[in-house]
């Protein structure tokens, strides 16, 4: 109801009208702006991120380029430090807009500065005064190849060598045009997302809008709010040619079992079972001549399947190795646990035989004899030689095994058939999913979700650090340095996020919406 009201207000007014609306500046933008990025309270955002690992990552990322030096010179010309200059110029409400120009992309930055502050800054920078345009004062700062326009609190900044968008926006500073980006479907949707996100007016918030170029087409819009150490994100996309390969689920299901997996690994996600049959399943079926899930087991499946990624400490293995070896587990909700045991046993025996056939006997995998299986006990078949062939000469790869069990057969509300690449991971996932108390459904969590997931950034960072020291096992000698750089880049980014959760839905085949929450890693000083 509230969403409908907001749409009605926006349509009637012709532009976003909500106070504090992150898309307010879209009313000044031409409709062909393809990228729109807005930040509210950027100075507060800078302060909140400064001592956190994510802030350090951003600074180290920026420091690799030329912008810090250029910014420092500009700040010094204004007689300020870089941070003070940022806070004064861009610290309140700042919007970046970009569109495709004749020769290259054109961009402008629209920022809100108190008139006396902007006047003082202009005096310090001594720009050349150009002829006013539509009663708006225009200045040229030749040292920085920038043009500026000032109208009351609004200051528009653009490069002087591609000022097409600047010239299009300047007349709008005094009077919003009748036709603008504000009428775009994505802006209206973004305004609703911003309302749903909520938050107090002083909160640091960001909004992004992208109009996708063909062949993808369509648009994406997202809003985010930072509340102490928590970033909440709402996103929506609609594509002309959707990049998804899986089907839209027809199931309504509850992702609460995912909570059980908190602490058992660095990545976990839960999906409905009616969207399977994607590229991975086809790959396995083509490679082995056996489907990933047998027909019999498929008929016994419930609504959900879980994928959990973790690692094992190689130094505790026998023989030990110096690597955090990733392990994968997949849990399928099953309707009948007793039938699931025989179904999964039969299918795994066929899969191991198919793997042997794939290796033309060279894998020498021991095809298990059902007579050796102990009722109710997890099964394990070493498949190290096959893993070595598939992934290469990686430390600990010989200890990869195919493990499976059926959890919850002892009377738990939900039963799961679990397959994992390491017995310890199988045990951890089994124990987690049998912990009914943590897996209980929460009212309102039922939905037609496409996926829901959790991530543990700092655990992932540990794993990536382990791989970084063994980059030579992943890449050709000439690519080792690039591989290490890539892993370090991802590690530092992961280090900045303690935990994250997300839920995604696909209302139609061409659209997707996401709700995500990121808990940032604490400031480094408070960790010591």
């Amino acid at each position, binding site marked *: 109801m509230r969403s409908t009201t907001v749409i009605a207000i926006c349509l009637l007014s012709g532009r976003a009208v909500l106070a504090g609306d992150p898309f307010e500046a879209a009313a000044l933008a031409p409709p062909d702006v393809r990228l729109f990025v807005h930040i509210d309270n950027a100075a507060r955002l800078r302060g909140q991120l400064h001592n956190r690992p994510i802030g350090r990552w951003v600074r180290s990322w920026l420091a690799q*380029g030329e*912008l810090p030096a250029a910014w420092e010179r500009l700040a010094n010309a204004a007689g300020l430090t870089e941070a003070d200059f940022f806070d004064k110029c861009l610290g309140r409400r700042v919007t970046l807009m970009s569109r495709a120009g004749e020769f290259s992309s054109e961009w402008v930055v629209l920022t809100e500065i108190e008139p006396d502050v902007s006047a003082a800054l202009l005096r310090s920078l001594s720009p050349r005064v150009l002829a006013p345009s539509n009663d708006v004062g225009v200045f040229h700062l030749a*040292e920085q190849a920038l043009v500026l326009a000032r109208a009351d609190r609004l200051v528009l900044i653009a490069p002087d060598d591609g000022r097409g968008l600047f010239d299009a926006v300047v007349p709008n500073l005094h009077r919003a045009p009748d036709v603008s980006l504000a009428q775009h479907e994505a802006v209206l949707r973004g305004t609703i997302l911003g309302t749903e996100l909520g938050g107090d007016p002083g909160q640091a918030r960001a909004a992004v809008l992208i109009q996708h170029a063909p062949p993808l087409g369509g648009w994406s819009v997202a809003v985010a709010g930072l509340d102490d150490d928590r970033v909440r994100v709402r996103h929506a996309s609609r594509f002309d040619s959707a990049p998804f390969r899986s089907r839209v689920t027809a199931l309504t299901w509850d992702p609460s079992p995912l909570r059980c997996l908190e602490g058992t690994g660095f990545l976990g996600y839960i999906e409905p079972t009616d969207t399977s049959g994607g590229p991975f399943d086809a790959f396995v079926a083509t490679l082995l001549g056996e489907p990933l899930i047998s027909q019999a087991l498929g008929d016994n499946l419930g609504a959900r399947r879980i994928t959990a990624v973790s690692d094992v400490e190689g130094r505790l293995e026998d023989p030990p190795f110096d690597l955090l070896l990733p392990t994968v587990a997949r849990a399928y909700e099953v309707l009948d646990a007793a039938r699931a045991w025989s179904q999964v046993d039969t299918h795994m025996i066929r899969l191991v035989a198919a793997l042997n056939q794939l290796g033309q006997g060279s894998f020498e995998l021991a095809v298990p004899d059902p007579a050796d299986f102990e009722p109710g006990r997890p099964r394990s078949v070493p498949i190290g030689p096959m893993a*070595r*062939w598939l992934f290469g000469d990686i430390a600990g790869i010989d200890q990869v095994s195919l493990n499976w069990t059926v959890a919850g057969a002892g009377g738990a509300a939900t039963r799961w058939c679990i397959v994992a690449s390491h017995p310890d991971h199988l045990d951890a996932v089994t124990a987690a999913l049998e912990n009914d108390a943590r897996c209980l459904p929460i009212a309102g969590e039922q939905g037609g979700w496409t996926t829901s997931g959790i991530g543990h950034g700092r655990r992932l960072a540990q794993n990536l650090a382990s791989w970084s020291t063994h980059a030579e096992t992943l890449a050709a000698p000439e*690519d080792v340095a690039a591989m290490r*750089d*890539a892993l370090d880049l991802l590690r530092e980014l992961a280090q900045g996020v303690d935990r994250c959760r997300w839920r995604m839905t696909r209302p139609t085949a061409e659209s997707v919406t996401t709700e995500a929450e990121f808990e940032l890693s604490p400031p480094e000083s408070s960790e010591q």
Partner: protein
Amino acid sequence: MTAPDLTESVLRRLGLAGVTPGTAKRRRRRRAFLRATLCAVVVGAGGLVVTLLSSQPQPLAPTVPSAIRHDLQQHGRTIDRTVRTIRGIARQLPTLTVPASSRHDGPDAQVSDDGVEPSI
């Protein structure tokens, strides 16, 4: 009473007789002064032009726009390299879709064209 003899002065004014040394000296000084003044004006004007041109602010590389352009390209390359590097890990997997039946059975099985035969 005799009239003054103006012959000399009339002839000098007509340019038909030489000037007195004093006049010649005065004229030389005046010409020299005019040349010096002209030189000073030319030098001054030139200096002024040079000064004006040199005081016109010129972009100092890197400017903020050029730095943004440069950094976007550089970071784009970094991300591209990262993605390509990570893809490189998985690159061998799609090639495994070659049906097992098409693999070599002979002694050269380890060096097939696709190079993805079991390395064990």
